[in-house]
């Protein structure tokens, strides 16, 4: 299974996603420049975190018009696996691949902190091999992670099981103090209706090794590999 990591101008977690795949999963991975028109045969494409175009105008807004996004749309429509992390999630929302929007954290500050996530939909290619009931310890680092959508969209998300992760306490309980950004219903990650496009604010690629404080991010990547019929 081959991964592709898109590099937009201003991406800065491209390297972290790259090394997560290369050094932790030991799988093939390559960078995809935003000007490219194909995904070069990637089986899973990662839109990494960072500040594409300096987050100017709105986070992810300008990057969503990059040439490579046409290929990402087509890939997603064919059922290809797309993972947007942090700024990558913002790009997916701006490009219409996922519903809703992310805006300023409610306290107006950038927040870099460990968060805990409940897995709300354990039946996705990204989550199927997370042990049942496991609370994931994965960090966030963002200034615009406050998820918002209108009530109809929220209803649809719930009906289709599109809410994938929520911020919870280490014990797995919903608590406003566990929500780092004021996100609607503590939403940390959502997917499209088909379940092949996932966007999440927390950084699983930063939680791949005990040296970094947690290995829980591996569960998500292992799920992807197993979905593909591979083990690492």
């Amino acid at each position, binding site marked *: 299974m081959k991964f592709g990591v898109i590099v937009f101008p201003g991406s800065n977690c491209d390297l972290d996603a790259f090394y997560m795949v290369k050094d932790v999963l030991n799988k093939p991975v390559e960078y995809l420049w935003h000007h490219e028109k194909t995904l070069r045969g990637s089986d899973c494409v990662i839109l990494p975190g960072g500040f594409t175009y300096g987050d100017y*105008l*709105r986070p992810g*807004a*300008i990057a969503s*018009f990059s040439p490579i996004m046409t290929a990402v749309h087509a890939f997603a429509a064919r059922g290809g696996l797309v993972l947007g992390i942090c700024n990558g999630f913002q790009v997916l*929302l*701006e490009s219409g691949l996922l*519903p*809703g*929007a992310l*805006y*300023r*954290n*409610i*306290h*107006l500050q950038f927040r870099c902190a460990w968060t805990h996530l409940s897995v709300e939909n354990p039946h996705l290619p990204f989550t199927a091999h997370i042990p049942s009931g496991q609370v994931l310890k994965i960090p966030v680092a963002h200034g615009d992670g*406050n998820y*918002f*959508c*209108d009530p109809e969209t929220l209803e649809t998300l719930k009906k289709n099981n599109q809410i994938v992760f929520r911020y919870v306490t280490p014990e797995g309980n919903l608590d406003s103090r566990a929500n780092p950004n*004021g996100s609607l219903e503590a939403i940390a990650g959502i997917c499209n209706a088909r379940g092949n496009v996932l966007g999440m604010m927390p950084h699983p690629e930063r939680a791949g090794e005990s040296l970094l404080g947690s290995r829980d991010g591996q569960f998500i990547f292992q799920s992807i590999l197993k979905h593909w019929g591979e083990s690492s």
Partner: protein
Amino acid sequence: MTAWKAEIQVTYKKSVLDPQGVAVEKALGALGYDHVEKVRIGKYMELLLHAESEEKARSQVEEMCQRLLTNPVIEDYEYRLQPVSLERGTGQTGS
């Protein structure tokens, strides 16, 4: 072709909490302006465009707002359009 100056104001939709607005309202209150309410913080953009008619200019501005300049999920916009004479330059300069 006439040049048009568009002045665009972008604010969060009424249904979206504006955390900056809330913070500023609180700060104004602390300064004694306790009769102030409904503070909203937005963005102002201006641009020059060339179009044959005001109607065409409007449709271009609308399209740009919807595609890039605003996010319709969370933001509303208003704009003003006025014809400008280009003799004084565009404000942007080269080397």
